[in-house]
């Protein structure tokens, strides 16, 4: 791997930037691998990277049916935070945030992590109590958290309307200063490049169409480019988790829904942080290009179409203008949808399955991006050791039978 540095930049400038290496190879698939990762998004590529880095397993292939990071990795609103209520969630998301904080150095790739702070607004007394409770819970788990009153919110984010006459007045907010945003495409590309450098094969435009098993054990995957043998297979395919699991006759508690986001025209820097509001339901930050990046809730119906309904955008815009009257004449440029796989308890599934050698990482719902490095790290451990790490052990399939759910609905600081 050609190391990126200011010296490499200067050296390549002398030759007109014509001699940069490709960032990853595009090899022909081998007949078999130690590990096949199904899904070339951030989580899948991170899994491959940590398999190679932490566990020395490099005979690995990542199969992607489209292009790298073209699914939810490239469709989210890039928010990174770890202020979850329950111990299990706080641990795994905080682990992810700590990996984020060193990720650009680790990957030798600028993922543009910007820890500009995340506000979760409270609009009524219930929100205030929940928010303060979450601040205390976060601190007990070693997650940085602060409570701001309405004036504190105004000082931190001056463009927000805290007028008590608003339909849903801002009464305060939780603040995680270490939260922020990261460049989502760079996350996929950085993990791909670093995994490739450690010997991982990355095959794009190769869709998995079947999972072959013998005697209760996985033996490989059928793909659009032929059969690929594997000792172990990890499914990490976001919205299509159920589709892939059904190929191995595994039933999951997951429902896939469209989730939309949109960006405005680029404007000068006006919005210094990330603002999320559960009650009026919108979340917004400003990208380095100047566009406002705006997300909200899922469509109510089950869908795989990567597009949602217009009335969802309408209510999202209503919420935005409620909080930020300054944006009322801003034009929106683009909108798009992703498919999120939601779990009944709004927590992910990262676990072994009844099929030996088959592992599932999914159910991240609307909030998977922030977990990308932690998810890959835990999933790599689970695959390499055939045993979950204590961080992801609570996020098993068995919890739906035992009742040990990790219920982050609402508790996760955003409605799901």
């Amino acid at each position: 791997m050609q190391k990126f540095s200011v010296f490499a930049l200067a050296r390549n400038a002398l030759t007109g930037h014509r001699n940069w290496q490709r960032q990853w190879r595009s090899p022909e698939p081998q007949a078999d691998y130690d590990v096949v990762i199904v899904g070339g998004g951030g989580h899948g590529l991170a899994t491959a990277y940590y398999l190679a880095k932490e566990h020395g397993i490099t005979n690995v292939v990542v199969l992607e049916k489209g292009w790298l990071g073209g699914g939810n990795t490239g469709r989210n609103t890039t928010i990174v935070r770890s202020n979850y209520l329950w111990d299990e969630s706080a641990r795994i998301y905080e682990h992810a945030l700590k990996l984020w904080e060193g990720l650009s150095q680790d990957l030798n790739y600028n993922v543009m992590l910007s820890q500009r702070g995340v506000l979760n607004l409270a609009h009524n007394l219930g929100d205030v109590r929940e928010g303060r409770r979450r601040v205390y819970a976060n601190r007990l788990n070693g997650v940085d958290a602060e409570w701001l009153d309405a004036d504190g919110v105004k000082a931190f984010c001056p463009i927000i309307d805290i007028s008590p006459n608003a339909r849903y007045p801002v009464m305060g907010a939780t603040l995680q200063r270490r939260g922020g945003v990261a460049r989502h495409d760079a996350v996929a590309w950085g993990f791909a490049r670093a995994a490739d450098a450690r010997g991982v094969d990355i095959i794009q435009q190769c869709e998995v169409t079947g999972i072959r098993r013998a005697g209760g054990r996985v033996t490989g995957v059928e793909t659009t480019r032929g059969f690929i043998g594997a000792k172990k297979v990890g499914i990490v395919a976001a919205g299509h988790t159920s589709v892939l699991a059904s190929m191995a006759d595994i039933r999951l508690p997951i429902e896939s829904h469209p989730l939309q986001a949109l960006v405005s025209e680029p404007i000068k820097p006006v919005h210094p942080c990330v603002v999320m509001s559960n009650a009026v339901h919108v979340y917004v930050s400003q990208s380095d290009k100047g566009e406002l990046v705006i997300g909200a809730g899922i469509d109510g119906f089950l869908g795989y179409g990567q597009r949602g309904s217009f009335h969802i955008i309408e209510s999202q815009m209503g919420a935005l203008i409620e909080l930020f009257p300054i944006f009322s004449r801003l034009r929106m440029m683009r909108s798009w949808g992703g498919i999120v796989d939601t779990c009944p308890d709004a927590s992910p599934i990262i676990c072994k399955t009844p099929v030996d050698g088959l592992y599932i990482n999914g159910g991240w719902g609307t909030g998977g991006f922030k977990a990308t490095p932690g998810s890959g790290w835990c999933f790599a451990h689970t695959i390499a050791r055939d045993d979950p790490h204590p961080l992801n052990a609570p996020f098993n399939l068995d919890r739906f039978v035992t009742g040990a759910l990790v219920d982050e609905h609402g508790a996760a600081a955003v409605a799901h």
Partner: protein
Amino acid sequence: MLLIDCPHCGPRPEIEFRYGGEAHIARPENPDALSDAEWADYLFMRRNTKGVFAERWMHAAGCRRWFNALRDTASYKILATYKAGEQPPATAGAED
């Protein structure tokens, strides 16, 4: 926005409806006899079909009655709607 043909009221816009998820999940006849795994299957496990899917809708801003629809979850096209308690009509490509 979907245009949904309520079997009682006729075609109405999606904002009048509430979604109810997978259809034809029968409540267990004898709940006392169920194992934990069977309860989990009834409560949580879902087909999550990509393709033609039988699902429930409720006409919240209309007749307030539940009914069923056959809809393609990839194209969002609604192939049929039918009243609660009825079996799905035989539609080309229907698998549920």
